[in-house]
């Protein structure tokens, strides 16, 4: 039960983080469409790092 709550918290946190990353990346692309490639690469890397963190936490709790 508690680890389910913990998992929910992790997912909330990760969701907020991913939303921030995606949103800011979109803003960046809208402001500078010519930098789309670079922004996307950086976005994917940061999202992957966040994802790794979230998964790590999820599995530690499982």
């Amino acid at each position, binding site marked *: 039960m508690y680890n389910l709550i913990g998992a929910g918290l992790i997912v909330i946190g990760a969701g907020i983080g991913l939303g921030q990353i995606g949103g800011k990346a979109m803003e960046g692309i809208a402001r500078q469409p010519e930098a789309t490639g670079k922004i996307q690469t950086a976005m994917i890397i940061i999202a992957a790092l966040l994802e790794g963190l979230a998964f790590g936490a999820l*599995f*530690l*709790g*499982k």
Partner: protein
Amino acid sequence: METLLNDFSPGLFVVSTILLLALIGLMVKFAWKPILNSLEERESGIEDALAAAENARKEMQNLTADNERLAKEARAERDAMMKEARDIRDKMIAEAKDDAKEVTTKLIETAQASIQQEKQAALAEIKKNVAELSIGIAESVIKKELSNKKDQLELVEGILKDVTLN
């Protein structure tokens, strides 16, 4: 974490390590090395070809520039030659003119000199004739006049006057 560890199979880990090592080795040897080498070769080939084309273009430009320069030079040379010829011609004409002028002036001069001489001679003769004539006249006058003494004196006086005036 516990489920994670329980799911982990050390045997599969060992087997997949061996298989992956073999796969990486084989792929690098039989696939990636030749592929990457060929790709690089092709890329450098394309680059070389582009550079060669650029060089050829530049050479072509140089060639046309050379041609143009040569043509210009030839034209300039021709112009110079023509100019020289014209100059020579002009010079020759001028020289000829000068010569002709000189000759004519000389001729004129000699003619004038001879005319002068003739004139002098003629004048001298005229003078001589006039003198003789005047002497004759004077002789006859004197012969006629000298019968009168007073007239004689007058005459002498008058001649003397003329002489001083002369």
